[in-house]
């Protein structure tokens, strides 16, 4: 589903070059649920940006659902984001002046779907996240957990094969976080590939596999264990 081989991403400012990803490799199979863990500043968000086609990368190769995305133009990248990727952000990122219905509608409209079809998808997604009764609410009228569930509904309404989540429970208390994790597990069980960034080991353990990242490099668990022994 998602395969990166030796991907490097450098942030350049006037005075510094930050190698946010360096020779980073990862392979997420169809239907997999991967947790990406690493200390702050290790490149987790950078990875999600590159994986989600929100940002470009310098070198290496990246296939998404069998497509080499390195050479695509902005329009095609937008189209792939719209059709194949659902994003879940730590800070929900709902559009404040749109109600729940219109928020979930945003990616569906960009896909050019007809009104009745969009309505059907929105209602289905809201049922999945258990917020059918909140269609007309505005984000400010919802709790953090509810907002994140709306964001999840927005991410999955169009049925993308890949969900990318950046600390989706980072702003939530344990109970809310638990609900979100159950939701993600259920969505994954329906066949959606999920890559979730977290630094909560308890949550990460619920994934099929944990990938560690440090200083922009992927570290497999065996190597990590070896490092730990040497300390």
């Amino acid at each position, binding site marked *: 589903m998602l395969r990166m081989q030796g991907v490097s991403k450098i942030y350049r400012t006037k005075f510094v070059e930050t190698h946010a990803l360096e020779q980073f490799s990862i392979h997420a199979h169809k239907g997999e649920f991967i947790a990406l863990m690493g200390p702050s500043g290790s490149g987790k968000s950078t990875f999600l940006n590159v994986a*989600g086609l929100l940002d470009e990368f310098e070198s290496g190769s990246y296939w998404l659902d069998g497509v080499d995305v390195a050479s695509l133009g902005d329009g095609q990248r937008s189209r792939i984001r719209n*059709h194949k990727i659902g994003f879940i952000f730590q800070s929900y990122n709902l559009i404040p002046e*749109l109600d729940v219905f219109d928020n979930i509608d945003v990616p569906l409209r960009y896909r050019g779907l007809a009104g009745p079809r969009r309505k059907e998808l929105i209602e289905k997604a809201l049922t999945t996240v258990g917020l059918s009764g909140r269609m007309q609410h505005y984000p400010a009228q919802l709790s953090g957990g509810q907002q994140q569930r709306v964001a999840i509904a927005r991410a999955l309404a169009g049925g993308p094969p890949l969900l990318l989540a950046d600390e989706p429970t980072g702003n939530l208390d344990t109970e809310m976080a638990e609900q979100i994790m159950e939701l993600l597990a259920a969505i994954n069980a329906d066949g959606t590939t999920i890559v979730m960034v977290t630094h909560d080991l308890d949550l990460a353990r619920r994934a099929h596999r944990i990938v560690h990242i440090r200083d922009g490099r992927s570290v497999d668990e065996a190597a990590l264990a070896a490092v730990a022994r040497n300390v």
Partner: protein
Amino acid sequence: MEIGPILRAMLRNKLGVGLLVVEIAFAVAVVVICLGIVAKNRASMSIPTGLDERNILTIQIQSHGAAFDEASYMRQVIDRDLDTIRAQPGVLDASVMSPWPLQGGGSSTQMKPTGQPDSALVRCPVYRADTHFLATFGLELVEGRAFADSDIPLLPDPADDAPPAPDNVIVTKALADALYPDGALGKQLTGPGGGDTGDTIVGIVRYMYTPYDNGASGMEYRILFYPRKPGSPANLGYMVRAEPGAIDALFTGLEERLEALNRERVVKTVSLMEIKQRGLFLNLIVVRILSTIIGLLLFVTAIGMFGMTSFAVAKRTRQIGVRRALGARKFDIARLFLVENGLIAGAGTLLGLTLAITLNLLILSKSDAVPRVSAGPVLFALALIAVVVFLSTLVPALRAARVPPATASRAA
């Protein structure tokens, strides 16, 4: 298109959107009304005069010698001047007359068909001119004849506008039709309160127009000519028609020739085009001032639109990133802001047009100082507003389109 959600989102910000709508409405109303007035003034500036105005120059003479006070001497001077002028190479014809046509005003009177009550009076500008004026102006006679020497009273009357003896007069077709719709040649006309005697119409000119009180009394085409050789020591006026291309050489040449004839005079030549410019001065000023107001207003509207949109783009940078992440192309982002402002401009325009038409009808019900709102200026105003809104939105909208998608994932 995503008009539904855009509208719903805008209604959440009633104050901000409302202010913009009102700004646009105000701009539209003022531009529509001003453009109407500009159009009217421009139109009256381009009305043909019927005169061969590009080839006509005017000569104004002020005399100082005591002998000029005598009418018979004055008469001699005029005849000699005119003979001299007509003898100049490049001169087609010359005429003594008063006042100048096309200067925007002059002198006017009221006339009615002789024998009719005063309710039949029609206002008209009056000129006093000699036997050569038709040829000098380049006017075309449709009926009757030009003035003959015998039409001109021997001595100029001291009270010129109220001639004691009946005259033979020439009128424009417009005045003829106003007085006698069934044919005016040979008929008589009389001033206010006049009895059974009147002046006889001996010639009818096809067309002439002279700007007068901005068209308020509607008499600019209804013109009356009396046979006279007007002239006083203070003011003596000739009009000279030059052969095409010959006018430039005549200005100084004629001044010198006429001053040489008699040293006790000041001779000044001015082209009829310049006189006409003075006549249209008010129209020109109105056009200039209102055009400036329209320009400034559109500029302010553009600045306002640009500022509000730039502010909205800055405030919604994150949302733009989120939309990009959710699949919006750059075009979709730019379109979002263009549609938003398009809707605002649409609402403002509707409101502004309503305002302009209401205001217009209100003013028209009290006076006819302003032209009725008409399709031409309205369409032009709408096009102007559309261009202003589009351009002032386009710049921030394109900036919005360049917001990187990764903005969505930056820490809040």
